[in-house]
């Protein structure tokens, strides 16, 4: 059942790579479309009230090593699986028809999809690590072969950073198992045991830095702007929309889940770290002249909200953090897609050159309108999904970390500042005669953005459809971490 989400894309990747198929994009779309439908069906069957793992699958594999094929879903992983399936389909759909070496390209994307799904589903630390590492190579190739300017530099930087990330995580996992004297890497088996607090803090620190690189958090972020900017649009969608969420997922699943005492001890520091990320990302985004780089830095800021929600560790803030993962994935995907369309049509991403794209006849009016919507969603305007997640995080975190929360609210204001700058310079004003001969945006290019926009809008006005998946799991995770002070106002059950 769950294995389908991993192996169907992998089989698709193998089929596309090995068989002389001409319509590789169509095959990839069909495969990813099936996976998306399958994920939705699993979601339909999901029991919201059950906080524990559901639909578990187990196959003994290398038992002497403690490595078994062990899968399951809960309220933390299911929303991210849905996000992964949706964005994979969107990424494939939004890729150019004339992509070079299409068989390799679509194979790698499907491989990434399968590996990420595996990481979200894995209930064995070593199995998670394998999936976590497997997606590294396809991403490296996707950036270095189909990337833009400085792609080799960006791909190498990405590889080095994420390899370091993997190494730190592996050390933490091995340390946990060895120090506990456990004979298995099974997640559930490791949850219940305790270690001295200082050891927990050391191991948690490794996990935080390891996954913090992936998210990324300041100052571990320096690979991100180069990589996001160099990556082609579909790859940037997957990097920002899915891969970064894998980092956040890892922090919650393994940091919070395996080291609850240490988490509670470090929580104030984490909240401050989150605040620094939010403010740094927002202020640096304001200074950018390249709209893709601006969106990339905005991502750093927005991922900070997730850490804040996790650090506060109220049920409400944790639901907000999980919701923010999905919301941010959707918003980042639409922004990257639209920036890609703008670049493809206008030939530049420079704020100083772009102007007047809202012009109804010679501009890119629908793209501009959707860009406005994406910017509004990112800035947390009510009625859109960004508001739901940010409000939940702030509402849930304020009672625990009021100063950090208020500073993050300032960060939201700064988000509005740079998006106003972006939209004002890009969409409004006078269209420049010298460059205003842009090709028309085709419906094929509008469809991904429209799907994402509808999702962002729908979940904004009907947030229950987003938060209900993770409520029970969030309450359970908070309950398992007894040391963080909670305020009654922050109970999700209120």
């Amino acid at each position, binding site marked *: 059942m769950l294995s389908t989400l991993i192996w169907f894309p992998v089989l698709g990747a193998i089929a596309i790579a090995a068989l002389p198929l001409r319509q590789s994009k169509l095959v990839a779309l069909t495969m990813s479309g099936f996976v998306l439908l399958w994920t939705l069906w699993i979601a339909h069957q999901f029991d919201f009230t059950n906080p524990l793992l559901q639909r578990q699958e187990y196959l003994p594999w290398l038992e002497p090593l403690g490595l078994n094929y062990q899968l399951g879903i809960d309220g933390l992983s299911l929303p991210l699986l849905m996000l992964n399936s949706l964005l994979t389909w969107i990424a494939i759909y939004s890729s150019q028809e004339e992509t070079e070496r299409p068989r390799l390209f679509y194979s790698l994307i499907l491989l990434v999809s399968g590996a990420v799904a595996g990481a979200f589903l894995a209930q064995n630390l070593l199995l998670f690590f394998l999936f976590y590492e497997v997606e590294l190579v396809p991403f490296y190739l996707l950036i270095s072969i189909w990337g833009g300017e400085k792609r080799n530099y960006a791909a190498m930087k990405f590889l080095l950073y994420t390899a370091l990330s993997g190494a730190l995580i592996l050390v933490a996992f091995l340390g946990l198992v060895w120090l506990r004297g456990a004979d298995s890497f099974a997640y559930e088996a490791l949850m219940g045991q305790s270690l001295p607090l200082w050891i927990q803090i050391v191991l948690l620190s490794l996990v935080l830095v390891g996954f913090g690189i992936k998210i990324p958090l300041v100052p571990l972020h320096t690979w991100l702007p180069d990589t996001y900017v160099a990556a082609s649009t579909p790859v940037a969608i997957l990097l920002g929309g899915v891969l970064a969420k894998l980092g956040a997922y890892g922090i919650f699943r393994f940091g919070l889940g395996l080291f609850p005492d240490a988490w509670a001890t470090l929580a104030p520091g984490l909240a401050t770290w989150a605040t620094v990320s939010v403010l740094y990302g927002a202020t640096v985004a304001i200074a950018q002249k390249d709209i893709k780089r601006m969106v990339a830095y905005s991502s750093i800021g927005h991922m900070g909200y997730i850490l804040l929600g996790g650090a506060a560790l109220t049920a409400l803030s944790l639901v907000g953090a999980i919701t923010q993962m999905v919301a941010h994935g959707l918003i980042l995907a639409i922004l990257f897609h639209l920036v890609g369309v703008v670049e493809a049509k206008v030939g530049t991403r420079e704020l100083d050159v772009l102007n*007047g794209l809202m*012009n*109804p*006849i*010679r501009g890119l009016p629908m793209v501009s309108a959707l860009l406005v919507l994406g910017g509004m969603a990112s800035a947390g305007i009510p009625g859109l999904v960004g508001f739901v997640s940010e409000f939940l995080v702030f509402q849930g975190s304020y009672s625990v970390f009021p100063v950090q929360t208020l500073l993050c609210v300032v960060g939201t204001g700064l988000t509005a500042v740079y998006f106003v700058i972006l939209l004002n310079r890009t969409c*409004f*004003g*006078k*269209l420049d*005669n010298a460059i*205003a*001969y842009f090709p*028309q945006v085709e419906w094929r290019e509008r469809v991904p953005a429209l799907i994402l926009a509808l999702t962002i809008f729908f979940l904004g006005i009907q947030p229950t459809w987003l938060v209900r998946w993770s409520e029970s799991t969030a309450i359970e995770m908070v309950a398992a971490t007894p040391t963080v002070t909670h305020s009654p106002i922050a109970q999700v059950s209120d």
Partner: protein
Amino acid sequence: MTTATDAQTRIPASTHEFADVVQRLEAGGSMLPDTPENLMQIIGIYKAYAVPMDFYWRNLLYIAEHVFLNPLPAFKYFLPQEYLDLHNHYAGDDADLRIWRGEATAHPELLEFIEKGELNQKLPKLLHHLWHDRINMEFAEACMRSMFWHRGMGGQFDPYLDSDEYKANTDRAIRAYFQGNPLMLGLYNLFPDMFLEQVRELSYYANLGLFWEVMAPVFFEMSDLYDEGKITTVPEAMDFLVNGIFAIAGRPIYHHVYIRGECYEIVPKSKGFMWLYEAALPYVEAVFYRTSPFRGTKSYNAQAKQVPTDQTEFHYGILYADVFPVGSAGIPPTLLMQDMLHFLPPYLLDYYNQYCRGEDDMLIQLGISFQRSMYNVTSAVIQALRTALLYPLDDPNPKHLMANRQFFETQLDRFTRPEARLRDVQRQDYR
């Protein structure tokens, strides 16, 4: 017809920024390069312009002559049949001077459009009007207001509007029009200048209507000649305009008002105001060159001196217009483009479909063709002025040729400012 060598061999080459254009003008050419593509664009646009223009001049005269000072002119664009049947003085069998070989009454394509509109459905006139499925008279009124607002652009017509004679004529008409209406007569007694100013504006309605009454058949005839293969170059098209200008130059400009069947001469024909000096030249100056800042996507900051304090330095006319942002709603040239869109000849439709975004941005493409065509009309005016005021192009006297050169260069100086589109229309890929 002269050749380039007359001026070029007898006087030193021009060092003007637009030396190549000066050379072309000295050779009897147009500011617009002579290419078949340019010719096709400008002739096609002349035809598309002439059809709504046939409505504009009739409606302008109707407003000036019959609507007059109606305080609630809600139906002023509902042109009565009488004015659709009104004979153009330069077309039809009974023309004073037959410029166009077609009918003197409203153009058939215009009548068809008035009946069914863009919806291509016969609905009550009011519905077509409210749906804006009609000829946009707002453009014609914007041109009229531009002439009226700038005023003082030479000639005798405009000073006459401040004369005692004009005031007396106006007073007589106003009192006749409001006869039996004590409220309006009382208001007139209280605010006579306000009503006088209204009538001045109506005199410009008549002025522009009489100007366009000439231009519509000129453009129709050019289109027919092009279709028959008798106009084959841009200079030929310009020469047709120059010849037309001289043939019609003396046409009287007047303003008559019809009140209860009686004609009141506000500006009598007997004043001898001539079409060329009192209508054509002020029109070109006000509409082609000056107008006023667009209310479009480009905003001007008057306090930052982005708008000249001296009206004579205004440069917002079609020769300077940035046609791209004009795609927004509500700006007069946009309305004209919308009007012309309905009457494009098939060859121009095919042409636009081949470039840029085809049908989707045709409005802008035809706007730029219109800009090209107006550079050709302005060239005709410049050549006509040169003919009237200076020397032949093949004059043997170098001093005379130099005087011509200075005249051309002075005219082209107005296009050296960055907003001017003369540079752009030299390129074929400016669309």
